[in-house]
């Protein structure tokens, strides 16, 4: 049992990171912290793919002419794309947070929902008056 856990320690690590990331996204009210959580979540997936690609005693997949064992390069390439997507998401998310702070004066979800509630109520009051 213990051996089974230790042999696959990187998978356990990945699951651990994944859950931490998802938990931060769900539990934190700070918009920046949510994005940090999202990043951890995505990074765990990158690690998952790279772990899949690892071949025991494999080296980097570069042709040197000598018979060697290579790691599977495909997951690496895939994850390169996913990293780019992750960076774009982070950049866009942070840009949105900047704009949100400019218009709401806060990056805490609670404050924002209070002022949105206020805005919605003032619209309804305008209707009834």
């Amino acid at each position, binding site marked *: 049992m213990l051996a089974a856990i230790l042999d696959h320690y990187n998978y356990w690590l990945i699951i651990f990171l*994944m859950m931490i990331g*998802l938990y931060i*996204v769900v539990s934190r009210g700070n*918009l920046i912290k*949510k*994005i940090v959580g*999202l990043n951890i*979540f*995505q990074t765990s*997936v990158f690690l*998952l*793919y790279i772990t*899949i690609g690892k071949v025991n005693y494999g080296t980097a997949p570069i042709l040197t002419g000598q018979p060697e064992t290579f790691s599977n390069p495909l*997951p690496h390439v*895939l994850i390169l*794309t*996913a990293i780019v*997507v992750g960076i*774009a*998401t982070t950049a*866009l*998310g942070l840009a*949105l*947070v900047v*704009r*949100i702070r400019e*218009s*709401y004066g806060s990056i805490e979800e609670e404050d*924002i929902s209070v002022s*949105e509630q206020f*805005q919605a109520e003032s*619209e*309804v009051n*305008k*209707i009834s008056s």
Partner: protein
Amino acid sequence: MTNWLHHIPILIVAVPLISAPICVLFTFGANRKAAWLWTLLVSWFAFLCAIYLLNHVLENGEISYHLGSWKPPLGIEYRIDLINAFVLLIVSGISAVAVPFGRLVVDREIEPDRQILFYTSYLLCLTGLLGVTITGDAFNIFVFLEISSLSSYVLIAMGVRSDRRALTAAYNYLILGTVGATFFVIGLGFLYMVTGTLNIMDLSDRLMQLADNKAVHAGYAFIIIGLALKMALFPMHVWLPNSYTYAPSLISIFLAATATKVSIYVLLRFLFTVFGFSFDFIPLTLTFIFLPLAIIAIFFGSIGAIFQTNIKRLFAYSSVAQIGYIVIGIALSNTIGLTAAVLHIFNHALIKGAIFMAAGCLVYRVGKLTTDSIRGLGKEMPWTFSALILAGLSLIGIPTTVGFISKWYLLLGIMENGWWPLIPLIVIGSLLAVVYIWKIIEVAYFFPAPPDRAPVSEVPIELLIPLWILIGCNFYFGIQADITIGIAKEAATILLDNRP
């Protein structure tokens, strides 16, 4: 010439993709109109390509295009059968009518110096949606899904000029959309781990022998949850109402008509082509998870819509309900049920496209769209409101409209499975639609206009033509339904073909 036509499958994606950076170049002349014209031309080009592809598939069967002539499963394959040719037609068709509508409303709603970038993001969004639909490579789906999602976050946030809540709507969509896409990638990782392939056809072949593999089961769960988030199935719909409400009009039209539909297509692809009932609990998840959620979605969405005071928000909630109808069709998993699902993907795109276009016309004239601001407008804007009501009738499912056709097939599918208790639920769901459509009719026609409001004139003809084209389609395909039914039936047969 024939040689060139052979490359249409890649051109339909590559042309919008390359034209996006070219569109940025219009910033140097600050030429907003040229950027719009460019987007229009690209949309029409994509539409023509989609028509050609659908025709080709109808006549000659599936197309398999190998990117860079690398043979699948090693190379990336674009595989077009009847289902994705049909979805391609929906996406590019809606874009082809929405962009002509867009010029005036974009001028009104987006800051002048941002408009060119707006059209650039729009082209990227179009690229993403077309790419997700056409590709036969599972990882490609993720990449294109993210292209379309990232650009739609930007586009939704551009609604900030009218309402700052567009920012938070875009932010929430970003968080949930990314979680959904990441779940999808985790699922793909599990599938790749056991099969070593990402080509959809190859995956489907290899998964047949791996029915008992735990990693495949986990991958299945991750993929299904990720896609359910993207398609806004209850209770994962929370990002949708605000996004559709506060997005600029053009984006509400385009996303409401296409974005969730494309995710549903991917779900169909994975459920039926990739997993293809290779293990027992796929029918179980359909019956015991998707079906209840879909029914709740119908009631939650419809009842939620009744209580909205913002017109765009009202129809956003009704979108949540309509997703429910499509998912019921999928959950039936018989030929008629799937026909209904595919039909409703098409029909709902027409209905919601028309409705959000009418809403766009109202925004153009009145600005904020509360039920109060449209009081008594029915007589002042007769063309817009009659269009809104006709589209509303189609949403309810009155005979001779497209909404009727898909609901009729849904009922037939339910009868075939013998799930009788569902029938009254569907009928009640449609009656709830009557309630919220009536609410708009009542306010627009039977309430007096507020005395202090300046007279409102009808919107320019440039906005009415695209709107009435969509209304015309709503009735044309409601009366001449054999075209779409024929395609949908064949698509359903293809999907169920894989069943052992």
